[in-house]
């Protein structure tokens, strides 16, 4: 993991650097006395981690984080115990080390980094992006074109999938089919209805008209639905 160290205190930089060198896990590319110099460097280099002092003259560690559009992982190093709450408001901050940093605390921080990297590497379940879905109807797997679906209604243990050509009654749940549908086109407007947004004809109060079906929209979902529409 490539890192840089930013601290106006040379003693602190030396200690952090030595602890990194001993870890064999962290490769220190550069060290900076000023956060502004570090920002200039980051315009030309890609790094994974920054050891960042908070309290620096003219340009603080927090200023540094706020300046970066896409900050790398940041471990804050500070003599001030009272800024932890503020520090963890920043998503990029993964740890907060109070100076002087002991070897034991530094190693704990490395363990934390390790576990974060592992969880980031875990593959996330990908949504099916196929244009078709196969549904079980009367013991037959029937191919249904996803764009042709305009409405899905939950009915007890079954769902009714409505397409322009025909309807399919399938033993399944809204949750299961929702996971198979593209979220940019389909939206669950109510606990019993998923609609194809592209097929909306009009919206009135808390209902939408899809083809000839009037579908209720729950109050909690209405604002999200409105955000998905291409409103004038």
């Amino acid at each position, binding site marked *: 993991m490539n890192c840089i160290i930013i601290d106006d205190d040379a003693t602190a930089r030396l200690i952090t650097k030595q602890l990194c060198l001993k870890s064999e896990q962290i490769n220190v590319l550069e060290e900076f006395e000023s956060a502004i110099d570090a920002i200039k460097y980051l315009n030309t280099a890609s790094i994974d981690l920054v050891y960042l002092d908070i*309290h620096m003259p003219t340009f603080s560690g927090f200023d540094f984080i706020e300046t970066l559009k896409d900050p790398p992982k940041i471990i804050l190093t500070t003599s001030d115990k009272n800024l932890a709450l503020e520090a963890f408001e920043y998503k990029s901050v993964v740890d907060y080390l109070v100076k002087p940093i002991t070897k034991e605390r530094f190693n704990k921080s490395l363990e934390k980094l390790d576990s974060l990297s592992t969880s980031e590497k875990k593959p996330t379940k990908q949504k099916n992006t196929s244009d078709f879905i196969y549904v079980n109807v009367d013991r037959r797997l029937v191919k249904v074109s996803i764009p042709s679906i305009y409405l899905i209604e939950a009915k007890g243990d079954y769902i009714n999938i409505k397409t322009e050509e025909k309807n399919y009654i399938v033993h399944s749940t809204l949750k299961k089919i929702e996971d198979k549908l593209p979220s940019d086109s389909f939206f669950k407007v109510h606990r019993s209805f998923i609609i194809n947004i592209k097929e909306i004809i009009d919206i009135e109060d808390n209902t939408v008209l899809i083809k000839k079906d009037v579908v209720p929209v729950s109050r909690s979902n209405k604002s999200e639905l409105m955000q998905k529409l291409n409103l004038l």
Partner: protein
Amino acid sequence: MELPNLTLIKEISGNDIEFENSILDIIKLEFPEEVAIFKTNFEQKKYVEASNNVHKIKHKISLLGLKNGLETASAFELQLKQEKLELYPNFIEILDKIHVYLYN
């Protein structure tokens, strides 16, 4: 009386003498400069700047194992921001203790 010591530096260095010496060397180099800047700012009544100087010196105070000294310095750092100066003599006493320890 609390005196400067190398306990924490030894702990950080993992008893690596070379590392330990390099920490001490850099403290010896930086400490007088930081103290001089603090004194100048304090004399010129630039208390916010002086408070920032105290903040930086605090790290060295804690590295040298002065737990009470660190508390005093932290309180003085806050006081200076409010232009209160009561802890100045106590802070100078800590600086003097460190000076004697480092250079004698």
